[in-house]
């Protein structure tokens, strides 16, 4: 079974459908994890930490099932379009796309087979939603103006300003790496214990 799938070059229809199902799971998992952080002004910087908590096993099983180039990039593009339609900040969508493309490249260096590289790819992927906050730290004034245009009020920006400094950025980065690593680690354990035995990895 596994040889047969590997021999085919490019993405088959089966791969595309698997990608669709897993993209849905990834989105729902990161929404559940991140929603409490996203709506609270003082915690909004830690959104990526919450979002990184749940999707790890899903991500690793996806890579095990579709070990091919472009799979992650396409998923990133789809999720970015979806969140743009739902009214998210553009930098978050762009960050998600870049994160997914980078993760694709990183996991691709070991042909999507190395556990360590896949976990590293997941950590990079988790940095996608931080795009908004990096945009903020690079240029706070411009960032505030786009958010204000988008309907976020001045109060929110002020509350964010008082919460945001370099320590927060450090916590955000370290926390995301740590949480994503834990999630990826649990995922790889689950993969080994359950899914490889069940034979659902390609």
């Amino acid at each position: 079974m596994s040889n047969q799938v590997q021999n085919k070059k490019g993405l088959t229809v089966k791969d595309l459908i698997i990608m669709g199902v897993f993209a849905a799971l990834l989105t729902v998992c990161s929404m559940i994890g991140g929603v409490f952080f996203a709506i609270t002004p003082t915690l909004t910087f830690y959104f990526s930490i919450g979002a990184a908590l749940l999707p790890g096993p899903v991500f690793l099983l996806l890579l095990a099932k579709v070990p091919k180039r472009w799979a992650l990039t396409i998923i990133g593009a789809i999720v970015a379009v979806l969140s743009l339609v739902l009214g998210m900040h553009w930098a978050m969508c762009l960050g998600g796309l870049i994160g997914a493309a980078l993760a694709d490249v990183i996991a691709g260096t070991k042909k999507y087979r190395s556990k360590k590289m896949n976990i590293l790819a997941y950590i990079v992927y988790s940095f996608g939603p931080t795009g908004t906050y990096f945009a903020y730290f690079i240029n706070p004034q411009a960032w505030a103006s786009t958010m204000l245009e988008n309907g976020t009020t001045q109060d929110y920006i002020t509350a964010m300003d008082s919460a945001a400094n370099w320590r927060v950025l450090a916590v955000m980065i370290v926390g995301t790496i740590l949480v994503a690593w834990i999630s990826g680690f649990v995922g790889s354990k689950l993969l080994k214990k359950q899914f490889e035995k069940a034979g659902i990895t390609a």
Partner: protein
Amino acid sequence: MTPPTQKTKQFIHFDPRTKIILLILSMIIATTVPSLLFECVLIMFIAIFGLLCKKIRYSLIGTTVFMALYLFTVFYLQNSTGTMHTMFTAWLSLVFKVYPCGMLAGIAVSTTRVNEFLSAMSKAHIPKKIVIPFAVMMRYIPTIREDWHYIKDAMRLRDVSPSLKGFIKNPGMTIECVYVPLLMAASKAADELSIAAVTRGIENIRPRTCLVQIHFRIRDILVISCFLTLLIVGLFL
């Protein structure tokens, strides 16, 4: 603004491309919206669109929830201060930004069948590699919720608590009990879907045909022009 002739018809079928254009338009309107009152007009438009698509209950509930939020904002938040005020403003402003698109997206997704969506996308010359995962994803998100309820029931049956308390008491067990069925169900569903899709000839390289003919009609143009007017009015207000 919507012509009254459209309301008299019971069920009106819109082109999927119209729905996508409407989504994009309402996204732009929601981001450039000058006032909350104007957003009410947008919600009204979306509700009328939902009524035209025969989603009566959904549109009514959506409008009522929005009106409740709006009235709460107007009457409560205008004359309160403090931390609670900031928290609520932050939360509400995010809600107001996302709500119209979410409501319209709900209508669009629930009234579009997958085959229509696929043929509309292939008419718009969007590559299959993007369209197929997207269509599957839109269909699978409601299924996840269903699966989750079954998993919760099954966990209770086997004395594994699906709550936070159970997670703290017995983390390894709970994680396994949530993820394994969820991912198993997902990969089974993906396999079945792909078999079904391949037997129906999705891999055929010839251009796609569809029994349901999809083309822009006068009603599509009317609806799009209504939303476009709204957008232009909003930009100049």
